[in-house]
């Protein structure tokens, strides 16, 4: 039965001509990754277990079919809540072309969506759907696949984001920032796993407890997803009972990625074709964000009561999680594990660092001055350094919690990489609309001291006109590929080795052109020693949010392949498809990821990458925070 449903599944994808309209790159990557990961990969929980139970550990790779059989087995034995027998029904329903047509109609016409609710076509669909609705099981989720084509499913999300962006542009008045505007908070709250719209979402994230209680869901109301959570829990605990750990289930285009953190289970269900390693990294960050809010001592609640309901503890934090998940599609820090700095003249950043160092010496553990997600300066007491992931989670927390903008605040916060068990106390104050100061201390009584520190810091920054320079840098942006110095040998005389000194007409003229020299469109340079990266500004032809997201995903994929433990690590990679030429170069000191015009010449591209590296070295004073000790514990 399970095998029937599986093949039905695949044929659904095949029947759909639009299933992969714009991602040929994915095919190339996936063939390798597919081989590597197969349908379902299990790793032994630990070696001891495998030694004791050779029959189980020898079974390292299972296929999805036998898993489904086994789920059915659990289902019959233990839990009446989900019925695997409905898997078959749902999948057949999903394949039926009738459903596909109706659904696509809905997708293609957003305005008509509500009208369609009442019209005959949907009534048919609802009746059919009724079978699937009967059980909020994994089958409910699977039903999504056959019915969605990638292009139309993405339509809803993309259009939303695009409209938001347009509106925001008029508000911000053209402030140059690569980050697409986005409205925080949970959307589609009324959905549950029976809603077709919920099933069509391309990327779901779930946090649940080991007893199967929902804790967080990206879409829909957690409480309504109890049955679905129980199903996920059953899959995880079934595999665990066999002494193994489930990492990934592949179901056609969908990947279901699992991460178990003690009593907390995290699951991502995605059809975005991101590599497994990336999705797993995103789950790790999601867990880290939860720890930042609650600390790991939340585990004790589960020791006392395994059925503990954690949702009230996370009350009001939807915006924090949704903004983190949103950053998985635009912020390279989420996969590079590095932070980025706001470009500033060297003396300016030095001045900011000096005043932060002052307060750090007076009992502040970390003093961080940031503009949006970019670091202006950062100081740790006694040379303590902050893990890039902690910085990402902290800045996400601050930026997505609106109340910090209203007034100065003092809040407990945990830095998961610093100490996951204990709270630090954060004094947070916005100095202007994008720039904020975070002072972290271990002393819960230090508020008034930190307030004094802030007053002092703010006075010094104002006096040095630093906040004005920060704002100007936000407007100008950092490295523009058009500014790449022509020839490394002539750079000594070139003014453009300084970021601030580009000719003013460059802005108007070259932005409308075709990127930088030799077809260079964009690059990301990560300094391994500094734990920092710099990303060039997006310019033509990568100027819509969709194009930026696609390039982001391409980088993410190639990053994963460069760091793949099975094949790599690679030192260089040159990859050409119809969208880009991607060139990667990893050395002991840095990693460079560059995107070129798909017609770019290989030799020229390599030469251009050398020039980019030289350029980065020339301006490293301005784009990196130097003197920050690398992360090491």
């Amino acid at each position, binding site marked *: 039965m399970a095998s029937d449903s599986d093949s039905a599944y695949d044929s659904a994808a095949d029947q759909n001509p639009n299933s992969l309209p714009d991602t040929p790159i994915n095919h190339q990557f996936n063939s390798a990754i597919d081989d590597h990961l197969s349908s379902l990969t299990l790793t032994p929980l630990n070696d001891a277990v495998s030694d004791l139970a050779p029959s189980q550990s020898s079974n390292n790779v299972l296929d999805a079919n036998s898993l489904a059989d086994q789920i059915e087995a659990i289902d019959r034995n233990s839990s009446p809540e989900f019925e695997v027998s409905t898997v078959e029904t749902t999948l057949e329903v999903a394949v039926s072309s009738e459903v596909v047509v109706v659904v696509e109609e809905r997708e293609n016409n957003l305005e008509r969506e509500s009208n369609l609710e009442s019209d005959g076509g949907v009534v048919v669909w609802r009746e059919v759907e009724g079978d699937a609705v009967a059980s909020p099981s994994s089958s409910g989720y699977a039903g999504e696949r056959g019915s969605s084509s990638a292009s139309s499913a993405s339509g809803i999300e993309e259009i939303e984001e695009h409209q938001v962006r347009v509106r925001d542009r008029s508000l911000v008045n053209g402030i140059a920032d690569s980050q697409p505007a986005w409205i925080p908070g949970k959307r589609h709250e009324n959905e549950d796993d029976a809603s077709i719209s919920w099933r069509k979402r391309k990327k779901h994230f779930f946090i649940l407890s080991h007893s199967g209680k929902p804790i967080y869901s990206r879409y829909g109301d957690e409480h309504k997803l109890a049955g679905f959570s129980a199903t996920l829990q059953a899959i995880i605990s079934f595999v665990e009972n066999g002494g193994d750990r489930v990492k990934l289930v592949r179901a056609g285009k969908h990947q279901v990625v699992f991460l178990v953190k003690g009593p907390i289970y995290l699951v991502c269900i995605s059809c975005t074709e991101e590599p497994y390693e990336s999705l797993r990294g995103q789950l790790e960050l999601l867990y880290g964000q939860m720890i930042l809010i609650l600390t790991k001592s939340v585990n004790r609640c589960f020791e006392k009561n395994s059925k503990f309901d954690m949702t009230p503890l996370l009350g009001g934090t939807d915006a924090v999680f949704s903004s983190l998940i949103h950053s998985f599609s635009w912020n390279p820090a989420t996969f590079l594990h590095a932070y980025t700095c706001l470009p500033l003249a060297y003396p300016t950043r030095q001045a900011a660092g000096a005043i932060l160092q002052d307060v750090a010496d007076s009992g502040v553990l970390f003093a961080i001055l940031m503009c949006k997600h970019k670091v202006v300066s950062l100081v740790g007491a006694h040379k303590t350094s902050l893990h890039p992931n902690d910085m990402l989670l902290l800045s996400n927390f601050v930026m997505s919690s609106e109340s910090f903008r209203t007034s100065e*605040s003092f809040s407990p916060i945990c830095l998961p990489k610093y100490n996951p068990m204990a709270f630090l106390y954060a004094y947070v104050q916005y100095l202007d609309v994008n720039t904020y100061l975070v002072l972290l201390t271990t002393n819960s*009584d230090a508020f008034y001291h930190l307030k*004094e520190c802030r007053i002092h810091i703010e006075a010094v920054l104002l006096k040095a006109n630093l906040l004005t320079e920060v704002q100007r840098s936000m407007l100008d942006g950092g490295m523009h590929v058009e500014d790449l110095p022509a020839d490394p040998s002539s750079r000594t005389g070139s003014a453009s080795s300084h970021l601030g000194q580009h000719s003013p007409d460059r802005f108007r003229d070259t932005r409308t052109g075709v990127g930088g020299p030799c077809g260079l469109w964009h690059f990301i340079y990560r300094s391994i020693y500094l734990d920092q990266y710099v990303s060039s500004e997006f310019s033509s032809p990568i100027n819509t949010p969709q194009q930026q997201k696609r390039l982001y995903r391409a980088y993410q994929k190639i990053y994963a392949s460069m760091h793949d433990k099975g094949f790599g690590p690679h030192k260089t990679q040159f990859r050409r498809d119809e969208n880009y030429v991607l060139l990667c170069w990893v050395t002991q000191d840095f990693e460079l990821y560059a995107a070129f015009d798909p017609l770019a010449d290989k030799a020229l591209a390599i030469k251009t990458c050398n020039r980019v590296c030289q350029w980065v070295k020339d301006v490293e004073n301005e784009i990196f925070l130097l003197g920050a000790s690398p992360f090491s514990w």
Partner: protein
Amino acid sequence: MGCASSVPDRTTRGPSGLNPVSEGASDAKNLKVKLVLLGDSGVGKSCIVLRFVRGQFDPTSKVTVGASFLSQTIALQDSTTVKFEIWDTAGQERYAALAPLYYRGAAVAVIVYDITSPESFTKAQYWVKELQKHGSPDIVMALVGNKADLQDRREVPAEEGIEYAEKNGMFYIETSAKTADNINQLFEEIAKRLQRPDSS
């Protein structure tokens, strides 16, 4: 602000945690008091404070994280002033354990509930008990029924609030941060009830 003041001698701070470093200490004419707002999430604590301090009302809900700090000075008719240093605490359950950090040493506690939510009234009673046990013995407590503009959705009768407040030696007031109704009265009434340093 000079450099010296940025690093106050930490020994000058008392054991009572988040209390102001004594700069311009209270005298008979000019009082400075620490006020803490407690109550369930979503009852409108931040809205009351922002209405009082900035005269603003923002209908979009912004969940408070930890606690926000604001201050506002009011002048009374007897030509004295009271400066309120206000700790607007987060109502979420996860911050409940940290509340002592904010209410320790507070001279005033304003406990807020939402007149449309009986649960929030129950939560308010929890906070009253907590303060009776662990707060300063001479703390001035106010029980505030907020969202008074939503009369048609009222679920907690005013009498219940009044009765509970009387039993516990608090004063009772219904406010609306949205319409600004009774907001200033709340703080003026608190100011009147404060213990004055002996004015001789």
